[in-house]
């Protein structure tokens, strides 16, 4: 999935979405012409931002994964940049979020460099009006932070198989994936929750804020084997905690689009 398809997918998931993204605007300009012409024009469109020396050599599927990941990283980086500046983070938690913010911005820069694009070249415009008090109420800030981190873990996990053609970049994605999981655990802990996903994940005020974030997390079938009843002393809850589940691109994007301006 390239960026064009990614935004087409967002459009499909949310037909009313309108012009949410700076890139998307250009896409609409293209859309005014014949579709075939628009598709043919894409390489020209991207050539303005793609550094061919590196980014253009990526296999198409790998590029699609990285662009998708970059979209999510832009959202996280934007969120924490605003959060850290908002003044609502208590002093004794401040370092946690300034550290997370640094990591997310580093992910953005690394993915941009890998794709061969300039800083913020693909950055969409974001909005947070689905959670109006997110930068004035620390509790809301934490709920959305946990959502982004647990969602990021699920999104990267789902994409690993799509990077098998690019082993070194697969490893980079796994290295980011683990950092997102560390973030998720600490933010969960700040909310008085366990660091791992318990049950359907909806404890302590998560529902109904972000209903789809934890869909499927109760799964206890692994590698085609239903583990419930097969491991002594372990109930279904413990078994579902022990394995984090992936979430597909459509489901992740349906959540992410809440934040696209």
């Amino acid at each position: 999935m390239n960026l064009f398809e990614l935004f087409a997918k967002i459009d499909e998931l949310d037909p009313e979405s309108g012009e949410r993204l700076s890139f998307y605007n250009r896409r609409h300009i293209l859309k005014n012409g014949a579709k075939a012409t628009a598709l043919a024009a894409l390489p020209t469109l991207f050539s303005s931002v793609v550094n061919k020396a590196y980014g253009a050599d990526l296999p198409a599927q790998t590029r699609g994964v990285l662009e998708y990941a970059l979209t999510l990283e832009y959202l996280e980086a934007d969120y924490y940049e605003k959060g850290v500046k908002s003044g609502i983070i208590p002093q004794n938690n401040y370092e946690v979020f300034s550290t997370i913010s640094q990591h997310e911005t580093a992910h953005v820069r690394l993915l941009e460099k890998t794709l061969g694009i300039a800083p913020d070249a693909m950055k969409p415009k974001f909005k947070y009006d689905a959670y109006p008090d997110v930068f004035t109420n620390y509790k809301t800030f934490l709920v959305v932070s946990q959502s982004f981190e647990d969602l990021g873990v699920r999104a990267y996990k789902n994409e690993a198989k799509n990077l098998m053609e690019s082993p070194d970049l697969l490893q980079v994605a796994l290295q980011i994936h683990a950092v997102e999981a560390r973030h998720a655990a600490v933010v969960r802990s700040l909310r008085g929750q366990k660091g791992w996903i318990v049950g359907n994940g909806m404890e302590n005020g998560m529902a109904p804020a972000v209903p789809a974030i934890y869909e499927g997390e109760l799964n206890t079938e692994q590698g085609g084997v239903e583990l419930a009843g097969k491991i002594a002393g372990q109930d279904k809850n413990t078994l579902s905690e022990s394995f984090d589940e992936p979430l597909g691109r459509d489901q992740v994007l349906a959540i992410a689009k809440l934040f696209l301006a």
Partner: protein
Amino acid sequence: MTSSSTKSTPTGTTQESKAAVGRRTFLKSASIASLSAAAIYASSCTDHNGNPIPDGTVDLGSGDVGILNYAYALEQLEAAFYTQIVATPYAGITSQELMVMTDLKNHEVAHRDFFKTAISAAAPSAIIPSLEVNFSAIDFTSRSSVLGAAKAFENLGVAAYNGAGKFLKTPVYLLLAGKIVSVEARHAAIIGTLLEGFNGQFTAGQVDANGLDKAMTFGEVLPVAQMYIKTKISGVNLPK
């Protein structure tokens, strides 16, 4: 993991390894009944150059199954470690800490038993036996020794999975490794908060300037794991 003690230095086998010894010794002569299952298992193995792997050494094997055995070995180590902590909690353990240790024990046992089930189904002749652990370097009466070791084990596990993923050829195994590694990363972070509180140190030393967690090769991980595993293990046939 620098402190040591002679007061509490459990060295032992899991229930499975005792059962494995039983089965193996049933098949072998009584004269080697005192050897570990692992020793017997590896007695006829060779590496990829045809060189014999020393007697008493467990060969993790090659390809995807070798990597699954590698993960199974690390999960055996972690499961045995947390089982010991919950059985003999350190002095002054809080109810919160005991709850965390109990959860970690349950997760690692689930991972260990999952691998045992999965490898037994996929490659019954290639699964490694239960390994004998050696925790003599860990003082289980000391909070700092136990949590320091826990942090090291979790971070080792995360870096091991991160480094191994790209060698897997089967997408479903890669997904399963991904399902487990993020839980290990969650563990590492929570152990970090028990040691450091909620300051910016929760990823200290583990995340580089690019925001990347560590990835370690088989050759980097195995010597560290071996310090806590009495059974000799060999990764010489793992993918390169």
